[in-house]
């Protein structure tokens, strides 16, 4: 029989764990930023593995994911463009094609799909890798050599992930528009150059900053959450569990950050909505 006390006790434990994890993640993030600033100091001569580790992370997260992201971007872009071209004139909003593409593909679909793919591909792999390192005492070995895991593992991952996310997001946006229009041209024979011009004419510098901001946030969330869960493993059985946890938690954190940012800067981010909100 479930007692009321059990429910409250479990809920309390969950809340305490959640609070502790969030605090630890914030500490890990701040440690990582401090470590990054230390390495960027021109007078600092230690940690010569930094560039090598960052290159490795960019290779794994960015370069090796190029084909996957490219194909997905092509399919997403093609689908959205074909649907938009077919259906928008029916509602009498055919002239807003460029804006729809900008808001839907560049601002929303691109960052979220890239986030999910990178999290699913690289974030989970990173968690499993760090978890195995912990189990095999490689992390302890680093500490025994006087090497802080944050400096050697987390910070290069953080930098590599943020840089990769920036590149992948821009790559996704370009492939989705250019490639998507090409797919549409091949299937429903649209005037390619006119639509391409419409699409790029609607994209402003603000959108570039928007993608940049989203990429940085996504890169930070993926790297910090994956590293946090990877480093918190105690035994081999936990590895598979923390992989799933890191995926779910990073998605949740990204949504929370998005809601907070939208709530705080709504009017600044969406000047088009002024008409509705005065």
């Amino acid at each position, binding site marked *: 029989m479930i007692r009321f006390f059990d429910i409250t006790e479990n809920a309390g434990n969950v809340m305490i764990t959640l609070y502790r994890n969030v605090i630890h993640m914030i500490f890990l993030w701040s440690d990582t930023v401090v470590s990054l600033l230390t390495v960027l100091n021109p007078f600092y*001569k230690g940690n010569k593995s930094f560039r090598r580790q960052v290159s490795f992370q960019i290779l794994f997260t960015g370069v090796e994911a190029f084909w996957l992201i490219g194909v997905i971007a092509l399919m997403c872009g093609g689908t959205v463009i074909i649907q938009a071209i077919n259906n928008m004139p029916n509602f009498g909003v055919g002239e807003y094609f460029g804006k729809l593409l900008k808001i839907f593909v560049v601002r929303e679909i691109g960052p979220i799909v890239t986030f999910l793919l990178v999290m699913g591909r690289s974030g989970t792999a990173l968690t499993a890798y760090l978890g195995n390192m912990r189990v095999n005492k490689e992390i302890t070995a680093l500490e025994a050599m006087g090497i802080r895991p944050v*400096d050697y593992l987390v910070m290069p991952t953080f930098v590599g992930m943020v840089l990769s996310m920036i590149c992948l997001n821009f790559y996704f946006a370009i492939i989705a528009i250019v490639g998507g229009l090409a797919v549409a041209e091949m299937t429903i024979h649209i005037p390619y150059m006119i639509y391409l011009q419409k699409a790029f004419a609607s994209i402003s510098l603000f959108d570039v900053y928007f993608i940049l901001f989203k990429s940085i946030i996504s890169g930070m969330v993926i790297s910090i959450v994956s590293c946090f869960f990877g480093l918190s493993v105690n035994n081999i059985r936990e590895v598979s569990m923390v992989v799933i946890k890191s995926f779910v938690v990073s998605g949740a954190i990204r949504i929370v950050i998005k809601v907070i940012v939208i709530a705080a800067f709504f009017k600044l981010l969406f000047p088009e909505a002024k008409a509705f909100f005065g």
Partner: protein
Amino acid sequence: MIKKKQKIENISNYSIEVDKVTCTIDNNLLCEDVSFALMPGDHFTILWKDGLGKSTFMEICTGLTSTKYQGTVKHYGKNVKHYANDVIMKLRSKIGYVFQNGALISNHNVFDNIALPLRYHSQKTNREIDNIVQEMIVAYQIEDIQFLLPEMLTTSQSKIVAVARALVVNPDILFLDEPSLGLDHESFDFIVERLSEFAQRKNTITLMLTKSLSLSKALQFPIAVFYNQKLTLPKSCGNQVSRTTKQQQQA
């Protein structure tokens, strides 16, 4: 008062002090009231049976674990729990640690594994570091495996690489956790030779935990035996380690 002062003066000479360490994990008592102290020039073997917390005790001695025990562990006269994180990391740059399983970094090849502590701590250029590592690789006769990943190495090769990685920084203190586990005869002799060479260097300290009597005999370090959760120093052990430990116990 005088005794107290003498005690403080004595203790400040020790590089490693383990004082009345009692460790219990999951209600299992691993060790009770273990005390010893090592000063530069001391080399010490503890014979310890498998599965009785050897690696945990070694982690306590190195300061890698600070929560699982009662008692005090001091490095260079200061409790390891009271060191700032940055300071203890700097101290560890002059400490070598050979793990029971080698604990080589799995996505680095042998060369990068050996270069790892130098690349992080050393002020030398990358070219100088590469030269040092290359010399080390030649000295350890592992040229043919230098670009292999740890998963492709045999146990003996992993152990040799682990010893090379620990000694590449010219450590002042060397911790050895079961260094002879899984070694073939040739590698055993090779590692004994390297460890003996290290012991002959001036002002170095070695603390070795092993179950292997043959290794203990080959290295000829003073031997203490861990039995029934207690550390017992044999009567025949008339060397500096036992003297310093006895002095400390008397004090």
